[in-house]
């Protein structure tokens, strides 16, 4: 067991974990952060995407011990004081989700994408989400969601 200390969605946590435990397992099983889900075992689907020190990572591809000392944000840490994050709002507004299983990862990846490129073209959005699989939406409305969020975020920034 290894002692790790990190911040998850703004809360400081400290735990003894097995060196082989994945970050996504730690989030789900130790912390009850079940908003982050596991969709595959080959890091293809991106359903488990979270932010590690502000950068999107697939939490199935990171060991819990690697997150020691880091700041982790999950889908559960996005809304502030009951107000949805503009990307969450855009996914609802544009019907960017159906079953919702890929949605946490999709939203976290979209945020990362928009941080790097606040005004992406459709092609840049599609390429930026390439690591996240959705089986329901055909991506059409996910792309719309990101476009809408880009507009909202740039509007609020200016």
């Amino acid at each position: 067991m290894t002692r790790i200390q990190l911040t998850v969605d703004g809360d400081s946590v400290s735990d003894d974990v097995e060196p082989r435990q994945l970050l996504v397992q730690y989030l789900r099983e130790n912390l009850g952060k079940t908003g982050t889900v596991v969709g595959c075992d080959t890091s293809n689907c991106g359903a488990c995407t979270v932010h590690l020190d502000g950068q999107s990572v697939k939490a199935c591809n990171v060991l819990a011990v690697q997150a020691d000392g880091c700041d982790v944000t999950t889908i559960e840490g996005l809304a502030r004081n009951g107000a949805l994050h503009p990307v969450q709002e855009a996914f609802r507004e544009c019907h960017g989700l159906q079953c919702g299983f890929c949605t946490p990862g999709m939203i976290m990846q979209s945020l990362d994408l928009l941080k790097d490129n606040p005004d992406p073209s459709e092609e840049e959005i599609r390429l930026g989400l390439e690591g996240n699989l959705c089986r329901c939406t055909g991506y059409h409305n996910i792309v719309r969601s990101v476009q809408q969020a880009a507009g909202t975020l740039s509007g609020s920034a200016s």
Partner: protein
Amino acid sequence: MTATQERPTETGREIGRDRRRKEDQRLITGRTRWTDNITLPGMLHVAMVRSPFAHARIAGIDTSVAQESPNVVTVITGADVADEQGSLPNAWPITPDQVTPAHPPIAVDRATFAGEIVAVVVARSAAAARDAAELVDVEYEELPAAVDLKEAAQATPENGGALAHPELGTNKSAFWVFDSATAGTGGNVDEAIEKARDDGIVIEREYRQQRLIPAFMEPRSTVVDPTGEQITMWSATQIPHILRFLLAAVTGVSESKIRVIAPDVGGGFGGKLQTTPEEFIVFLLARRLGKPVKYTETRSESLVAAHHGRDQWQKLTLSAEKDGTVTGFKVELLADLGSHVSLIGGGVPVLGAFMFNAIYKFPAYRFNVQTVLTNKTWTDAYRGAGRPEATYAVERMMDELAAEVGVDPLQIREKNWITHDEFPFTSVCGLEYDSGNYEAATARAKEMFGYDELRAEQKRRRESGDPVQLGIGVSTFTEMCGLAPSRVLGSLDYGAGGWEHASVRMLPTGKVELLTGASAHGQGHETAFSQIVADRLGVAFEDVEVLHGDTAISHKGMDTYGSRSLVVGGEAVVKAADKVIEKAKVIAAHLLEASADDLEFAGGRFQVKGTDQGMAIGEIALATFAAHNLPDGVEPSLDSDATFDPVNFNYPHGTHLCAMEVDTETGQVRMRKYAACDDIGNIINPLIVSGQVHGGLVQGIAQALWEEAVYDDAGTLVSGSFVDYLLPTAADTISFDLDHTTSPATTNTLGTKGVGEAGTIASTPAVVNAVVDAVRHLGVNDVRMPCTPERVWKAINDARGGGGDVVAAETEAAAAPHFDAAEGTEGAGR
């Protein structure tokens, strides 16, 4: 549209609105209730040991090391539970003599596909269970595996072909026939073909429907808690009600002692329309051990062990007059069942049998299917289930006919389709299509697509010899959905009915709870059904709570598949709401001291005609709850129950147009444009409908271009992870142009038609037709799905005779007949 004009269009406040979904708040914030999220006190975890061999005798299993492993509770083999585990159900024996092998959840003495469960480890943590599963030592003796569908169909003990279940002496499970001549619904197709051989056109083709994997995003998971008075199962399933019934039927546990809950379910697409070995095993273990037990599959397990879909060979013969008027269509199928006849696996081709004639006035039709057992993952419903296969076959054949006649593919369709003034129309299969307007949908689709401009561009590129050619694909589909009239299901030997149930609870505060037997797993029932109830009862959208997916709450239902939730379940909702109004009217009349005949109900109020006296339904709900002043003999309840059994299927249709660019030098294909005009009758929520179509389109496009479950000769699934099974990503797909025409259904009050499967059914042939169209002038008349660059390149190269330049190939192609003598068709349908 005669059928259309007789029916008023629904004009309520909520129906037709782009309501944002009620479901989304919890899904976008991570407050979700997936089965795998559930943790219960003392819960044990299961890991499965699965056969690596497609076919092997289990000579022995040594569980001793695993048993001693840390935190392991028990290890169980098939032999340990042989007497109590039962056999998984097949609900649809399609013929009385169907060969149906026993289907134990844990293999007992023989593994019949690579991935079948042979032992089960139970431990105190999921990790401990998985560690110990590695320590179970199974001794296998490999047996010959029936892998190839055509070879399996031919295998007999005499010819030494591999048999999936040697004790059965055959791989053939059932042979099912529909013939319009014997059914009295049309002519004799063999006569039509013979005649056309003399003085018309006969097109013969063989198409492959490759094996697909539904690949819902949420892996399957099951938790069973045996500690209460009822045994509670949570499962990632589309069918909690059917599952409860079959758990009882198979295990002998009283149905009243079982509660099944489908909490948030992350997609299904038919893939969770199953009663699985894993569910039965977890149920058995929880009962045996007296503790909650959980199993969640890995994605690799899901791809190999959750049922697959499609997998057919289609031998097709279309006869026509010289002008392109079709005179007959003959369909001979081989369908791969995999290792067992699953819940409705045998019936999937039968669901397609009535749709090969599609929107056309074919005068003669014959269909037969031979279902075949192999040593591969068992197959069952995948989005569309039977109808995508039919639509692909007929829409590809109509393009081939158009090429033969030398006219535009839309022209050949127009010549043969049912015109809008011919509805209701009885098809050659005896189905009554209630409404539709193929002309209108096609005209709109052409307009959106820019059909004429793209044809002109195609011509320019052909003439200039552009290495990147443009192809235009057409799919004018219809389908039968809204499963299903119970009498029809009975006549097809299906084991249950096709009705749906709804119940309305009027709460004293005027809020409404709607219970539905349809079990959503991403579709948005909570939103769409709230819109229906809000309009019907005149209450606020926000005041309706839709409850589903729990047999203790929505106690009765047939669940969600076959594009049925709205057209069957929604009609039950309407009926349940109407019953509330009927009951409330009696009480309103009493309280308003008026005759019930003098009351009218609108906008949620009962009004005495011609006066300002009235009461809102919420006030009546409160008065009914108080029950201080009710008419004599009237029960103090407005609650209602309604069960709706459809009288007919439901026939959405649409025209889909696809433009594909094909690089003739590399075989690479790229989608340029996709426009679809669907007619799904009246629409409750346009936003949800467009989402259903988008997602459906991409699943159908994925069959055309990317997805295939590939087995090696030994029967090992090679595409067993998302690295190898290519689900499309955002970068692979484009944005779509959608619109609707409206021919309301005449068989339900709302005038709605199903849309869940429409996109998938329509898009596959549109894409392949476009790919073939791009290179048809080079002599290509087919590309096997998925149309990978290699296959496209090879098709072009083969057409060129393995070499030569484009011009030479064009000349050869012009002289060559369009029919390629297909190889190895002997097995089809014999």
